[in-house]
């Protein structure tokens, strides 16, 4: 019988990050996050709660345990107010803040189309290992819109 010792350790593809010939090494920012992200982290927009909201969502990221709550007030299909609270990392707080900023005043049909990429782009990028954090804000927004629709269909 052949040896079963086949569990040799193979490191991940080391060529993935290889620069093109002549490419300069990227400039490492002194801070991990860019200034816009830091700004939204230190002064998050639309923090708080809405009494008697038209839509509400509680979402969590099971991988890291972070979570957030999001409230919306809708009138004539437009998001007239939006508020959030977050127990999360800087990436989660900044992306949630930006997501609420983008969604504020939008028609729900447009807000539904907002993606995490839109949020990250609006922030001017976020470190790769933090990209998953941006899913929470838009996830909560979409869930709150669904909640709003459920509530209004019940009222009918």
């Amino acid at each position: 019988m052949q040896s079963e010792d086949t569990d040799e350790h193979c490191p991940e593809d080391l060529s993935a990050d290889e620069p093109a010939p002549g490419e300069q090494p990227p400039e490492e920012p002194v801070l991990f996050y860019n200034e816009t992200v830091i700004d939204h982290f230190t002064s998050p927009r639309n923090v708080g709660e809405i009494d008697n909201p038209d839509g509400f969502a509680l979402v969590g990221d099971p991988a890291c345990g972070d979570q957030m709550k999001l409230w919306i007030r809708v009138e004539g299909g437009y998001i007239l107010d939006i508020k959030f609270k977050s127990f999360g990392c800087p990436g989660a707080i900044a992306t949630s803040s930006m997501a609420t900023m983008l969604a504020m005043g939008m028609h729900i049909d447009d807000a539904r189309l907002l993606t995490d990429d839109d949020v990250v782009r609006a922030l001017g990028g976020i470190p790769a290992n933090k990209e998953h954090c941006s899913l929470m804000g838009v996830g909560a927004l979409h869930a709150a819109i669904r909640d709003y629709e459920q509530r209004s269909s019940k009222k009918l």
Partner: protein
Amino acid sequence: MSRQTIYFDHNATTALCPEARQAMLPFFEGEFGNPSSYHHLGRKARASLQASRYGLADIFNCGPGEVVFTSGGTEANNMALRGAAAALRRRGRHIIVSAIEHHSVLKTAEALAASGYDVTFAPVDDQGVVDPQRVAAATRPDTILISVMSANNETGALQPVHELGKLSRRQGIVFHTDAVQAFGKIDLGTVFEWADLVTLASHKIYGPAGAGALLVRNGTPLASVITGGHHERGLRGGTENIAAIAGFAAASLQAVAGLDEKAARIGSLRDRFEARLLEDISGICINSRDARRVHNTSNICFEGVESESVLLHLDLLGICASAGSACTTGEPGPSHVLRAMGLSNMQAQGALRFSLGRSTTAEEVDTVAAALAGIVEKLRSLSSL
């Protein structure tokens, strides 16, 4: 705004002390010899290496031949586990390590488990301390190696290594201790009375990174892990990092000089820090508070806030601390040490480690405590919990 750095992350690394720097300078300025060379430059390097080795031996009351220089703690831990496991594989395949070891021990133990060894991970109590009884109960006739750290890097909790070492010796089991976080904080002058293999790292004791040692008690079975030369008694091939080793030796001398006074001074600052926090911030919990701890470490859970957010706020104020351990940064998920102590994911996620050092002042302690109070209040006001 003028901003000064406040460094509360001494368990991650330390600033080079002037003595270490001084000891290293000649090797950057012409004394570049290879200690294996015949000629006078080689002899000079050889003499320096020898002096470093004798210096370490003096501190640990061991023979110079029992000091094996490595590139640092991770290599020494690898050398200890892999080397002892290989040397003793005919005698047995069972290894015991604690659940709160540094990853350089844990991952190495996991690798050994994947290659045919049987590994038991010894649990800790809610104070983060290994129970010697549980370890004793886990030993078997084929147990060849027990590895338990002297002090935990995240909580600072001291482990019952004397007891475990003596228990191991009675049963003919090799005992390894990762003393990286204990060196310079507690007296290790008689370490060979209970341990066979001891890991040390230079950059945790104000020496340069890139040097460390495995102390190998005479007669301890150990196979070479890095083959390729006669260096370090054939245990570790490779041209010695003379400059870093000289810095390490000089830093080691400083680490044990006046240890008690230094420990008392830094310990009282740590106590002041914790007292301030308890006074000013509600909903906090000091991990391993009831355990014997090294004097400089404070690991604290802040309820309802996420640790990276606290860390970034601190960083923006020029304050360096860490969440869990620095090695876990970039790896999502809560600390394995705090989880092993029975903390929930949520609690472990709000944990921060502050590790004080020689440069710490009472003023710094008060500044950091006040900053934390403000940050935690701010984050709690936007917390969804």
